[in-house]
């Protein structure tokens, strides 16, 4: 059971290499990587035995990148291909699998060896359930989002670097313009306290109710998808399609608690819900729930926090 690793995101590629190395060591097999950009030796120090390079790939475009990964698969002949599940990676992985006519398990959250077989875990049913999946094709393409695995401490190792000579296809989808999104200031993934806004907030200005609390608690502010994606009040959201968070305290304010949102907060140590609807599902998955109007509760909470011993 050998591996090939690729992600256009180098950090993520190193995380995948870390896991592939661990599994390969258990099975006594090899790990190859396709390097994005320069310095293939860095991939070796991160765990690869063999590194393929391709010149002229340029910025990400799924057709040439897909062709490059397919050629790397043909050269390395792995049984498993680990890919990064960034948005770009999630469209690349099935394309590569399709070119090879093989199985693909996209956007997995974990991987184990069970009786010598690779078994992955993935969220299904909107994020409410976890499925275990295996594949019988050789190779099989498996993708993981960032931070599923830790990269290794870089070590001095020897490895082979192989340049692939490829005729990359001319991309048929032309990028006309690339509009930079504003950089997020909040680091939700490593925050230890998050206060979070849902559609219970009527106007963007009202978010100051949360900002005050965030300041007192030194917390980050998160939100549900509609607050960010539909209303544009914030640049990132929490949930299955947004950030998966694991703070010690998550305070959901005016959040209904749909499975897509809850899938992203499951690893929180303590969940608090403040929602005026006593039947809101968020109350059922909280440690502490307060049925009330955020416009009354949040100012009272601010006061209580200021006055706390």
């Amino acid at each position: 059971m050998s591996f090939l690793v690729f992600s256009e995101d180098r950090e993520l590629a190193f995380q995948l290499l870390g896991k592939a190395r661990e599994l390969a060591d258990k099975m006594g097999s090899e790990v190859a990587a396709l390097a994005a950009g320069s310095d293939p030796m860095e991939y070796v120090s991160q765990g690869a035995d063999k590194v393929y390079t391709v010149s002229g790939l340029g910025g990400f475009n799924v057709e040439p990148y897909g062709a490059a990964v397919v050629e790397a698969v043909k050269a390395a002949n792995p049984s498993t291909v680990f890919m990064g599940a960034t948005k770009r990676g999630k469209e690349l992985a099935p394309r590569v699998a399709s070119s090879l006519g093989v199985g693909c398990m996209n956007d997995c959250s974990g991987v184990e060896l069970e009786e010598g077989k690779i078994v992955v875990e993935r969220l299904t049913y909107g994020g409410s359930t976890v499925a275990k999946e295996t594949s019988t094709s050789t190779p099989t393409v498996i993708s993981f989002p960032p931070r599923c695995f830790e990269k290794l401490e870089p070590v001095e190792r020897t490895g082979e670097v192989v340049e692939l000579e490829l005729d990359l296809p001319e991309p048929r989808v032309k990028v006309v313009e690339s509009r930079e999104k504003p950089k997020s200031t909040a680091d939700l993934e490593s925050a230890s306290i998050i206060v979070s806004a849902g559609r219970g907030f009527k106007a963007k200005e009202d978010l100051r109710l949360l900002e005050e609390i965030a300041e007192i608690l030194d917390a980050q502010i998160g939100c549900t998808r509609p607050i960010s994606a539909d209303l544009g009040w914030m640049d990132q959201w929490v949930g299955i399609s947004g950030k998966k968070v694991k703070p010690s305290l998550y305070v959901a304010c005016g959040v209904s608690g749909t499975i897509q949102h809850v899938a992203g907060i499951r690893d929180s140590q303590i969940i608090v819900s403040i929602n005026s609807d006593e039947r809101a599902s968020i109350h059922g998955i909280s440690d502490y729930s307060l049925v009330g109007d955020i416009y009354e509760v949040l100012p009272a909470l601010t006061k209580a926090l200021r006055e706390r011993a």
Partner: protein
Amino acid sequence: MRQIVLLKDIPDLTEIKLDSQTRAPIIEGVKRRISEVDKRALEAAIRLKEKVGGEVVALSLGDDKTKTALLEALAMGADAVYIVNEPELKGLDTNATSKVLEAAVKHAGDYDLIIAGEMTLDSLSSQIGPRLAQLLDIPQITYVKELNVADGKVRAVRDLEDVDEVVEAALPAVVSVVREINEPRIPNLMSIMRAKRKPQTVWGAGDIGLDASEVKSQSYVQITSVSAPKVERKQIRIEGESVEEAASKLVEALMQEGVI
């Protein structure tokens, strides 16, 4: 312009209950609806049709229940529905599913645009759009939140993590859309009545030139178990005579927990 929209009818996620022993979702008997993002793919196609004219047909790999679920597509404005229903082609993985859809697309006549949702909410696999683009050897445009067609070209805005990417490609192409692209219309009674008179064609594997067992042998991924992770939360309700009292109690509880 002729557009093919890929639709999947899935169990209504809000109605799925868990088996109390195994925590596996109970799918049997749950009403099926068109998956939410797929519905927005259809809405996008209908809006394009309203602008540039042509035809919108919906295509689905389904079963006996799919016909009923897809009435909604006809009510929303699809002109026709094609359903592949073949007992042997159930529970296929994405590799085999995409081969069935490829054959069905080729059978459904000419097309300029194939539109799908970024993912269906049951499997969350995000694979069908890219696989179909690869199989049909036409441009692949994913995560689309704005879609336009002019002068034989599709122009779209793609929603990526770091950028909004404006892209252009020649038709035909495969487009997959994100939830934010639109708010799907709710059909009125008239369109619901009219939907029942629109054509729904059902194909077996043979009708689209497929050998079912051959396709089935290319289904590689197996689901070995599905269950909901345990939620062990304290579920303590904080109450008080006044909001102030409740707020103080909450702060106290959180201090006790040592999280603030």
